[in-house]
């Protein structure tokens, strides 16, 4: 009993320090991100990037879209890609052995015919069953292959691609027209750039017609509303600040662009993992640092990719478990980089942050939810202190959400009406009263299911995007 008592006392104190530490870290990130984003906006004001839209001199890009059972959104996605503002690009849709109507829908919609096309096998993949094209849609290439996972599908896309830069985009995502040009500009401005990630925003509730987002709305689903604020925090503050330190560790699988040579040289995407998007970035960092090459991996909060957020508890649970398993898998795989000065800020700051706050954080938080009330119940913590701790934790947590909303409000201002802004504030506040705890539980579950779930394709029930007619 004494041991338990001591554990609860020390753990409660640890929880308080941990809460302060994590919030200090995140607030620091927010500060760096604010400076970086204001500087970016000033730079973009002077930038002449639009002249590159029609320019023949822009780097040609291959867009790779891995698809597995995406019949509901894939056609919209392809249409959005065909409508991009970019001079020279190709779209490679890789069907990874879908068991729904993905293949048939694409072939029928774009009237594709099977062609004989030799493949440059830079990376080994499962067998490609067929390549389909239609001269009417010169940019479009449809690849049908035997199921091998998302990473395998991406590797197959890389083999088929002909351009030096490739962008990978999820099949349930829609790109803004200028998104590609903004990403590609970084490869032009800084030739040492090997990867760039763009921001992912939530499309639920918005109106999309012929692959173009024509009206942005706050989603009706409360679950999706919470995620809008969550995405602000993750992308606007988290990744922007790491980008400033050239230590971005994740470029979302939903939207990123890569130097093909660099990816091939480090062996391509790792198959049999669901954290392939993080794995490739950490491996690129490692390879470049090992070879002592000058490089940049950046994140840009401006080029926007719209995606569907899970609206049901089941989908959210699956997604968060998957993310946590992917994170765990990557951190374990590259554990030798941790606290290794050879890897600079990656080894000394970013990886420790991911270990302490992102991987172990949910466990500490979940234990805090159990042991701090227990400490109060056992009379080890005074009522005042118990309440005080929760008020401080709540206020600090909410501050981060409000800070991210403010950052959005003063930079991109995608949600313009007063009602939308107020809704974001409300959801930013109440997020800490239930939703956050729920996601913590899902993440903890992910850690415990690590061995079982690390080799699967992530699945989520997709909905068709809302078109203007449906809305009317």
């Amino acid at each position, binding site marked *: 009993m004494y041991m338990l008592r001591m554990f609860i006392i020390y753990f409660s104190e640890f929880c308080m320090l941990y809460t*302060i530490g994590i919030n200090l870290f995140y*607030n620091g990130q927010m500060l760096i991100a604010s400076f970086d984003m204001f*500087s970016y906006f*000033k*730079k973009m*004001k*002077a*930038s*002449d990037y639009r*002249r*590159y839209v029609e*320019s*023949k*001199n*822009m*780097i040609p890009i291959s867009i790779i879209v891995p698809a597995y059972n995406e019949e509901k959104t894939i056609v919209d996605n392809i249409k959005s890609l065909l409508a991009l503002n970019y001079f020279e690009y190709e779209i490679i849709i890789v069907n990874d052995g879908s068991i729904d109507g993905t293949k048939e829908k694409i072939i029928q919609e774009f009237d594709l015919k099977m*062609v*004989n*096309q*030799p493949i*440059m096998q830079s990376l080994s993949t499962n067998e490609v069953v067929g390549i389909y*094209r239609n*001269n009417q849609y010169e940019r479009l290439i449809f690849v049908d292959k035997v199921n091998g996972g998302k990473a395998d599908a991406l590797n197959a896309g890389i083999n088929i691609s002909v351009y030096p830069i490739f962008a990978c985009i999820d099949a349930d995502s829609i790109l803004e027209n200028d998104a590609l040009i903004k990403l590609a500009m970084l490869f*032009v*401005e800084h*030739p040492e750039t090997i990867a760039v990630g763009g921001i992912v925003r939530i499309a639920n509730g918005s109106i999309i017609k012929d692959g173009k987002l024509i009206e942005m709305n706050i989603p009706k689903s409360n679950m999706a509303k919470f995620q809008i604020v969550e995405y602000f925090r993750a992308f606007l503050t988290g990744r922007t600040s790491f980008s400033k330190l050239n230590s971005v560790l994740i470029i979302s699988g939903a939207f990123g662009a890569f130097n093909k040579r660099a990816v091939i040289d480090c062996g391509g995407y790792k198959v049999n993992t669901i954290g392939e998007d993080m794995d490739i970035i950490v491996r690129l960092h490692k390879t470049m640092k090992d070879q002592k090459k000058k490089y940049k991996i950046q994140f840009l909060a401006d080029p926007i990719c719209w995606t569907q957020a899970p609206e049901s508890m089941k989908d959210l649970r699956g997604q968060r478990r998957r993310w946590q398993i992917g994170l765990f898998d990557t951190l374990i795989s590259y554990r030798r980089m941790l606290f290794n000065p050879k890897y600079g800020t990656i080894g000394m700051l970013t990886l420790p942050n991911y270990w302490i706050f992102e991987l172990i954080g949910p466990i500490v938080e979940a234990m805090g939810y159990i042991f701090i009330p227990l400490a109060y119940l056992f009379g080890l913590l005074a009522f*005042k*202190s118990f309440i*005080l701790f929760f*008020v*401080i934790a709540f*206020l*600090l947590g*909410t*501050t981060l959400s*409000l*800070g991210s*909303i*403010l950052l959005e*409000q*003063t930079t991109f*201002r995608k949600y313009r009406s*007063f009602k939308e*802004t107020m809704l974001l*504030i409300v959801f930013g506040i109440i997020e800490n009263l239930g939703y956050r705890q729920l996601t913590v539980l899902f993440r903890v579950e992910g850690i415990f299911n690590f061995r079982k779930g690390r080799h699967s394709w992530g699945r989520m029930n997709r909905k068709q995007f809302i078109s203007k007619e449906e809305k009317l």
Partner: protein
Amino acid sequence: MTKEAFYLLMISALLFSFFLIAIIGSWFFQYFSDVKTKKLEDQLDKLLYCYFHTENENTRSMVQKIVKIIGNRTGRKEILINRLIRCGDDFIETHHASLMNLYEIVGIKAYLQTALASNNVHMKSLTCRYIGELQLENMEADMIALISNQNNDITYNVMLALAKLGDMKGLVHIFTNDAEHIYLSHRAIIEIISAFKGSKEELFKRTIDLCDDYMKGILIKAIAEDKIESLNPYYMTYLNSEDKNLRIASIRALSELNNEDDESYIRSKLDDKDWEVRAAAAKGLEKLGTSQSFAALGKTTGDSVWWVRHNAASALILIPGGKEFASRIINGEDKFAREAVISLIEKNT
């Protein structure tokens, strides 16, 4: 309640309140600022329209009205600059004289001169961009002086502005004397050259012999699309350069000229030691190749490098009469060549 916990509570409550008030405050600020800007833009658009479409005696009163609205406020000057830029290059070129007059009277020129001397890097870049887009003359020397800053954004905007102003002397000076300060990618430099509003041929001739191999390659790539026949001797000279990129650039430029006399020179590059040059040569023959290149291209479809095979097969199929020759390859023993040719025949039918 311990003192530390109280401080923490106060800090978090303060931060919470600050962000909450800042979000609401910034929303209202943006809202009213948008309304005000929109009103000002409409006013300026009307006045500018009248200024450019009325008789002489009225223009003076229009200018006075514009001066009155703009006053000495930098924000308003920026709005006016952006309204003018929105009118487009053609408009600015057509009304150049009256615009120069307007810039002087309203104080845009003085404002941009001050901004150019600012310590802020973004401000300098933006000012150069404005100068270029407004085609504001007599500020070239001030801009060239900024090159020594060694900031990529400034360098790019200075060079682009000089190109838009057609300042040959300035650009030649930078390409030949300040090349060590230029860290721009070749694509950015090509964009600058393609935006040049003077004689590109003259710019090329005055620069090519004075700059290094890297810049020479970029110059050739940039000018290639203009298909200037008189530059053929320069391309021929660099076709045999030691520098791989220079050879590739020359092949591309020669193929753009589409002169059958150059076919044999490009064909000879199918045997180059660097695969990138061989691939470029095959691609070049796609444009100006004739039946004389069939045999060489046929041989190249069996090259050890995928891209060379691909380009050679593509050239063979696209040159008139080449498909018949290609069908012999399909029946041949070379697996790689067969694959390359079959796929391209399918793609092009």
